[in-house]
């Protein structure tokens, strides 16, 4: 496995922690020079971990659909507005009468990018491609695009599929180019 950005980040943080520990040991204060400016900075002695629990009660059917390999959207029975991501009320007409529909699996790639510099919580992945495709129903889906990004072109056909994301091992959808 190639070295990831996370390995680099963790190595840098470990080095910083070790330095602060040494300074505290000798001087008695967690004050270290800023790497760029040399200004005195207080190295925080408190740490905060963030992990949210988000309700998916109203959109359970979407997640249950993934287990069957289906990507679901919702449609307002009153005005016909389509929702992806799915929601159980209609922002357009105010109705709460929505039905679940399965999306077609082949869409047209509108745009894409390759994430080279990653967020901390994605830094264990190799570079990944994010694309947005227009589906035949007239709505767009944003997801990772599998395969070599050099072979991707705006306007090409891409297919939605359900995969297990590793290393977390959970179901999610992604695109793959249609040959």
């Amino acid at each position, binding site marked *: 496995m190639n070295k990831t950005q996370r390995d680099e980040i963790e190595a840098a943080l470990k080095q910083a922690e070790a330095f602060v520990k040494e300074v505290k040991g000798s001087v008695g204060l967690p004050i270290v020079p800023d790497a760029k400016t040399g200004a005195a900075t207080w190295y925080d002695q408190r740490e905060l971990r963030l992990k949210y629990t988000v309700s998916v009660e109203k959109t359970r059917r979407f997640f249950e659909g993934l287990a069957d390999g289906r990507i679901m959207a919702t449609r307002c029975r009153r005005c016909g507005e389509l929702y*992806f991501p799915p929601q159980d009320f209609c922002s357009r007409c105010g109705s709460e009468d929505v039905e679940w529909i399965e999306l077609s699996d082949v869409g047209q790639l509108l745009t894409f*990018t390759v994430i080279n510099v990653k*967020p*901390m919580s994605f830094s264990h992945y190799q570079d990944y491609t994010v694309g947005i495709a227009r589906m035949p129903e007239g709505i767009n889906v944003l997801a990772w695009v599998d395969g070599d990004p050099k072979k991707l072109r705006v306007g090409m056909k891409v297919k939605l599929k359900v995969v297990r994301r590793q290393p977390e091992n959970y179901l999610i959808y992604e695109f793959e180019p249609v040959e």
Partner: protein
Amino acid sequence: MSSRRVGIIGAAYSKFGDRQDVNLAELTWEAFREALQEASIDKDEIEFTVVSNVGAWSSEPLPAVVVSEAMGLRPKGSVRVEAACASGSAAVKLAHDIIAAGQAEVATAIGVEKMKESPTPLVVEFIGRAGNYMWEFENFGLTFPGYYALYATAYMAKYGVKEEDLCEVAVKNHYYAARNERAQFRNEINVERCMRSPYIAWPLKLYDCSPITDGAAAVILASEDYIRKHGREATWILGIGSATGTSNMSKRQDFTSLDASVVATRSAYSKAGIDPGNPVKSIDVAEVHDCFTIAEILAYEDLGFAKRGEGLKLLKEGETYKEGSIPVNLSGGLKAKGHPIGATGQSMIAELHHQLLGKVGGERQADIRRGVALAHNVGGTGHYAYVTVLSLHKEVEA
């Protein structure tokens, strides 16, 4: 709807960049003290304080209180506002509206951001989350450069634009930042150097991106009555347009224009009496939201400075340089002056206030003929948009 005219009597921004030599309050003080000096008022005359700060990467969760205490503005009322990268313009709008509604004679909008308190990967994480967390970040790990890269790819495909072309924006903005002593980057660059820089979110490279910045900016606003009574020098707010885009990128119909930016522009032009068919003829100088090179090109078109697909042509023909028909980002822009998220809006407005009054001076001073300037401030990736029109006069001259 009739409301009172509001003017700006003092404005300033701090030196932007790596500012770990100061904490949040000390950084704010640099900008506030200068704005107060220009306004030549007693700080006790300020009746309300709006503080823009996005935070999370910095340690103070109640920045409006920290700022009010340190600036000596308490116990008057205050609030912190968030409109992502447009927070500063949102703060100016609220301070403006409070005065326009007759709820205060003098109010201030103060922006501050201390992004250097956290390591870069964590800042990348926080900004990447600023879209739709559950549907676009949690599973797909977008970053802020990634969001704009989606626009860049679509724009390049539609109009046959190359990466080299986008670099031209960075070249212009570094040119002016090199002449702005408060800018983060004081170096000129060329297209080759930009092209050699590493990819951050293909097709955007390091030099296509605005940096992570510490900075503060303050704007002091007053009612027309106050300004007349005290004989203050002022620039006038002719109109502020605002709009909100979709949280989910997937809900956008088109990736070659920012809807929110178009709606905010239309509203601002209408309020200010600017012809949307030919705004260039009414405006002397503009600061636009160039968080990425592609964003400046989109801004030219969304503001009507160029037709669709012709934004690059406007730049390449030199029209957005100081000598051109519509100088843009003579401060160096977000790209090179720096982008302290919550302070960017006030820094644009402070810059334009001084441009209109001829106080910028030197190589960056625009020719002020019509006395009108425009600040275009986008929050997130077209999640919010604010367009503010300033003038030396209380009306646009026909």
